[in-house]
């Protein structure tokens, strides 16, 4: 039943509403394609029985006229979200067979609205990575391939499983998280839509912590409208997360398709970086032209501290990570590797349980927080962070949103950047500023490169103004008319 899996979330919800098919049929179709997509390694845990059970319950609710906003829609869940009774690993050996006795708020919101869980999706270990290669379960393979090549490409990271699953029609939409670009870069690499909302929109409760002042959940979806439907369900105030914003969630889907006439869109000149492939430059120009045609006013703006965002991030994020990951001590949950004494047990547990990239970041974080370096590195980075946020404040006095490329390249080969951490970090050059400032950012598929690989454009909005991003994203989506899907090889 590939017809059912190729539907958008919106079309599937309409089909469920007018009884064209049941959730059980829709879910079964997805369960089957998921089971047959092992070469992609997108799902690290499939929950077919649970899915069918949830689908049957959804059909029963619908029959009684009690269907919620997502009722019966099968989704994939990034394995950074704790799911009650279902193994949650953050793709780290240190969590091993951790089975949460609680449900993350974001996933609980999805189930409250009737969604169905297909399984848990692969990611970089603790969401630390840009290629999904740091996962303890091995990398996800991008469903897209370069024309005339069988080489395996990365789906991006850290939400590589989420992006690949959506691109390959292995779910109608997926949860993801974004600390430095982990929703938007994979979305760009896979021809999908991803939005990181304003910091505080989605509760972080029950999401395995990486860098708490930067982490935000959001959806990866097939269309802008699907992303709006999902984000509306995922968002909302949660007293269990002290940084969760106590404000009403707007009706995001109503912003999609709204006229963007008269909106002022800024083009930050500092995003024209050296060595940017001409195709990305061209796509950016194309995006500007589309928005002009749709009636937007294009304004050049300056974000002078852009080039310092990544180095500042690589102090702030590892510092917070080293603190957050201190909880993995082998005592209360997860892996324990015994040593001769307590300290040795801690050290052996963490040496065996964490992968190389996670260790690297814990060491950097510990170093920049250690006595003698705290002011020179950590406090300095927090001050630069303020400068970056101030740049955006200035720009948003003149414009309603910003348009940039999402990533500095199309999907690259697995293994290509594995030996050079800094080269890998540069993947997030256009996305990381948004996390530091706490702003919403969205990636929309806008075209393909010479090898037929998808490229994305990024929209950055004012704090709490996801609505404008959905309107502008809808306009770009309509103009780009990006309908290409990866040819099925798996």
């Amino acid at each position, binding site marked *: 039943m590939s017809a059912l899996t190729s539907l958008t979330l919106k079309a599937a919800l309409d089909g469920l509403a007018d009884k064209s098919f049941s959730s059980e049929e829709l879910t079964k179709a997805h369960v089957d394609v998921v089971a047959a997509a092992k070469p992609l390694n997108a799902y690290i845990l499939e929950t077919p029985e649970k899915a069918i059970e949830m689908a049957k319950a959804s059909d029963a609710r619908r029959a009684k006229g009690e269907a919620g906003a997502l009722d019966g829609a099968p989704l994939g869940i990034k394995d950074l979200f704790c799911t009650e009774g279902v193994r949650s690993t953050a793709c780290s050996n240190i969590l091993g067979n951790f089975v949460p006795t609680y449900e993350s708020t974001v996933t609980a919101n999805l189930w409250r609205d009737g969604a169905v869980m297909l399984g848990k999706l692969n990611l970089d270990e603790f969401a630390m990575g840009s290629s999904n290669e740091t996962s303890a379960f091995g990398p996800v393979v991008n469903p897209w391939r370069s024309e005339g090549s069988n080489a395996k490409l990365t789906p991006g990271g850290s939400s590589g499983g989420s992006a690949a699953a959506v691109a390959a029609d292995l779910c109608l939409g997926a949860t993801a998280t974004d600390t430095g670009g982990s929703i938007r870069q994979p979305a760009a690499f896979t021809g999908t839509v991803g939005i990181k909302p304003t910091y505080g929109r989605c509760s972080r409760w029950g999401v395995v912590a990486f860098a708490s002042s930067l982490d935000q959940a959001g959806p990866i979806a097939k269309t802008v409208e699907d992303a709006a439907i999902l984000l509306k369900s995922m968002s909302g105030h949660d007293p269990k997360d002290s940084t969760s914003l106590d404000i009403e969630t707007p009706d995001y889907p109503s912003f999609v398709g709204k006229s963007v006439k008269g909106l002022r869109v800024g083009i930050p000149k500092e995003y024209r970086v050296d060595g940017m492939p001409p195709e990305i430059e061209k796509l950016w120009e194309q995006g500007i032209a589309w928005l002009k045609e749709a009636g937007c006013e294009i304004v050049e703006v300056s974000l002078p501290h852009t080039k310092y965002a990544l180095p500042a991030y690589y102090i702030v994020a590892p510092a917070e990570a080293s603190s957050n990951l201190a909880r993995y001590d082998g005592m209360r949950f997860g892996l324990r590797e015994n040593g001769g004494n307590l300290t040795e047990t801690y050290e052996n547990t963490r040496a065996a349980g964490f992968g190389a990239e996670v260790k*690297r970041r814990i*060491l950097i974080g510990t170093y920049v927080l250690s006595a003698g370096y705290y002011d020179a590195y950590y406090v300095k980075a927090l001050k630069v962070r303020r400068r970056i946020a101030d740049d955006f404040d200035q720009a948003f006095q003149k414009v309603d949103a910003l348009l940039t490329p999402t990533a500095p390249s199309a999907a690259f080969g697995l293994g290509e950047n594995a030996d050079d951490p800094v080269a890998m970090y540069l993947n997030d050059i256009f996305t990381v500023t948004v996390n530091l400032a706490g702003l919403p950012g969205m990636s929309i598929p806008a075209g393909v490169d010479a090898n037929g690989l998808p490229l994305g454009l990024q929209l950055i909005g004012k704090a709490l103004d996801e609505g404008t991003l959905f309107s502008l994203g809808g306009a770009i989506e309509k103009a780009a008319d990006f309908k290409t899907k990866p040819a099925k090889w798996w």
Partner: protein
Amino acid sequence: MAIDAATVRKVARLARIAEPEDKLEALAKELTGIMTWIEQLGEVDTDGVEPMTSAVAVTLPMREDVVTDGGDPAKVLSNAPKTVDGFFVVPKVVE
């Protein structure tokens, strides 16, 4: 800023991660590479800039000081590597 093997040994100890002696040099080189790249932050004039500790300018909310959760030791212990009679079992701490 060059990070040497001795610094890596010290930081790894602080972070409670066992790093074998023969890996310290390679790690030192890697971390030096990253920290050298980070050094460019020194170019930014941050005189008089308040450090930004949170992405949202809100004061943390207060709540009533009452118990909202708990009373379920089986749940708390369900993922523990080792338990006895409702307790976590950890390696001997005091001789």
